[in-house]
């Protein structure tokens, strides 16, 4: 039982980490609390369904998509969502980035618009999401669904790639500089608006991939209304880890991943709603007791 919690917790945590990374990035670099993050992630899932359907082959009543095209569909979905994300940033978010109330209203508005658009475009009923890999693998003596393992591995790989990008490249350096002191970065000649657009593109793409991997390997069902869950989880993780801290959200992702497995193991009535409620309760507790989270840098002065 312990091994099961260990392994499954790690897998869940890894996929959360990718999701939370996108959220942390856009908050750190652009200071944007993106309420549409969950909807963007869900849009990625729908885009994946859309692209994958091009290459679907139906044989004997079973629909299959060849693996290489699955990858292609994911990549295309990520690109499309990334571009859309930066457009949303440029035209809707950037004008109101200083006024928090307006920003929240506007991003929630975008989220609901995306929800309705997905409902209109894809229907409000259930849609199947699958990466068409069946079977299971044994890890540490625990049977794990292969698609989940793949999801976790891909998530960690992407996380690592982003980490290196931010740490080693010039653009990554610009992102770190802007996140640490926006005005200083501007004075140094960094075009923070372009940088924010790029960050938003990356953030949205990450959200898309994370969404696809998660849904495809767990529930395998999408409806246009499930965008609140990834949003809640991202929020809770990022606030626990500390807004703006990549390391913090990484660790917090695993904390949530493991605690979820613990609950599933020991609480039979545990449902998706309770997961959200628990995550939110943790979030509220953190905000009240230690607003900067585990590794956050904002110290809330009275002043």
């Amino acid at each position: 039982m312990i091994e099961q919690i260990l392994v499954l917790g790690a897998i869940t945590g890894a996929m959360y980490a990718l999701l939370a990374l996108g959220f942390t990035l856009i908050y750190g670099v652009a200071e944007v609390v993106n309420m549409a993050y969950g909807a963007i992630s869900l849009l990625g899932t729908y885009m994946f369904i859309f692209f994958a359907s091009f290459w679907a082959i139906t044989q004997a009543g079973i629909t299959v998509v060849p693996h290489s095209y699955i990858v292609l569909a994911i990549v295309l979905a990520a690109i499309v969502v990334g571009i859309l994300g930066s457009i949303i940033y440029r035209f809707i978010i950037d004008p109101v980035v200083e006024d928090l109330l307006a920003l929240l209203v506007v991003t929630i508005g975008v989220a609901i618009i995306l929800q309705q658009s997905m409902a209109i475009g894809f229907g409000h009923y259930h849609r199947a999401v699958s990466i068409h890999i069946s079977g299971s693998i044994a890890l540490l003596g625990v049977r794990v669904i292969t698609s989940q393992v793949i999801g976790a591995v891909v998530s960690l790989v992407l996380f690592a790639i982003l980490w290196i990008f931010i740490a080693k490249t010039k653009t990554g350096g610009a992102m770190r500089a802007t996140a640490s002191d926006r005005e200083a970065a501007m004075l140094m000649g960094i075009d923070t608006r372009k940088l924010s657009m790029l960050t938003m593109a990356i953030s949205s793409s990450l959200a898309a991939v994370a969404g696809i991997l998660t849904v495809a390997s767990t529930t395998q069902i999408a409806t246009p209304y499930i965008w609140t869950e990834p949003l809640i989880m991202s929020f809770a993780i990022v606030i626990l880890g500390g807004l703006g801290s990549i390391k913090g959200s990484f660790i917090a992702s695993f904390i949530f991943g493991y605690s979820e497995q613990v609950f599933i193991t020991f609480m039979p009535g545990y449902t998706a709603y309770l997961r959200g409620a628990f995550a939110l309760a943790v979030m509220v507790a953190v905000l009240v007791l230690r607003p900067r989270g585990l590794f956050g840098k904002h110290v809330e002065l009275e002043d």
Partner: protein
Amino acid sequence: MVRIYFRRIHKDFAQHVLDVPSRLLALLCFPLLLAVPLTQTKVYPLVTMTLATTMAIFAASWDLLVGRTGQMSLGHALFFGIGAYTTAFLTKFYELPIVVTIPLGMLTATLAAVLVGFPSLRVKGPYLALVSMAFPLIGTGLVFYFRDVTGGEKGIWGLPKFFPGYGRVETRVGEYYLALILLLISAIIVYKVANSRTGIVLVSILDDELASKACGINVVKYKLMAFAISALFAGLAGGFYAHLMRVANYDTLGLNLSFLPVILTILGGLGTIYGPIVGSYIYYVVGVFVLDEMLSIPSEWHILFFLAVVILFVLKWPRGIARFVTDKLEDLSEEREIEERGPHIWKKYRRKK
């Protein structure tokens, strides 16, 4: 004479809130609202107008908290839902009369506001918005967990009507007028609060919380008060809604409902009394009568339209339609020149005496 002079200060200040042209507008519209049932004989438009009136109360309660006191609430559905579920529960399982259960629902919502308020107020700015979003979602989780009591997905249905025993149309007409009366009472109370010295303190908290503290104001106390009053009226709206629709389900705690007063208030004007009311009527009248009947646009597209409008408004005119119109009217009638000082302003001040 001195006393008359000082009563004027409140009236003059009130002009910032309910500027003369818009007060006229509101007075003009009210008889129109009263006349609605005379023109509509079908049930659907009547119910829509009643719904608009109910949501006007809900939106006004939200605006008191957000527009007046500056406390962001993205989870106002919590109080609406509590109001709805409380009255539903009490009327269905304890068979108490509506006249008793709705006020009980309101008080429960107020109690919830105080409980929720304590942790919420320790938290600043963006975090407050997040925390406020969290509570109704937690509430939804609880609703599903305790499905025996709350009816789970189906909710509590079969709730008693306001006016049992009357014909289909008559009962809807009665509900409409009842809603209007409740709206009027709510609007008057909120207006009185907003324009009292307490209201002045609330605006000071909105403007500069730190400076307000430096004036000796216990900001937390006033914020809680604003929360409580806001929840009271949100609970009223929720309770009324439950008996209007004759069901209370988890939609009454949903995010879409939490966001509705935001849309309505931004349409009509943030921080005013009439703004959310105007916004609500515009939303429902345009939504049902224009988009639905005249243009036959399916309902999924409605919200796209309104949200696009809202986003446009936030980007271009942060103060909403009603404010925009009345500002223009005021500019024409008073030639307000904020930049200039000197004798010109002296004259303006003299005119106000």
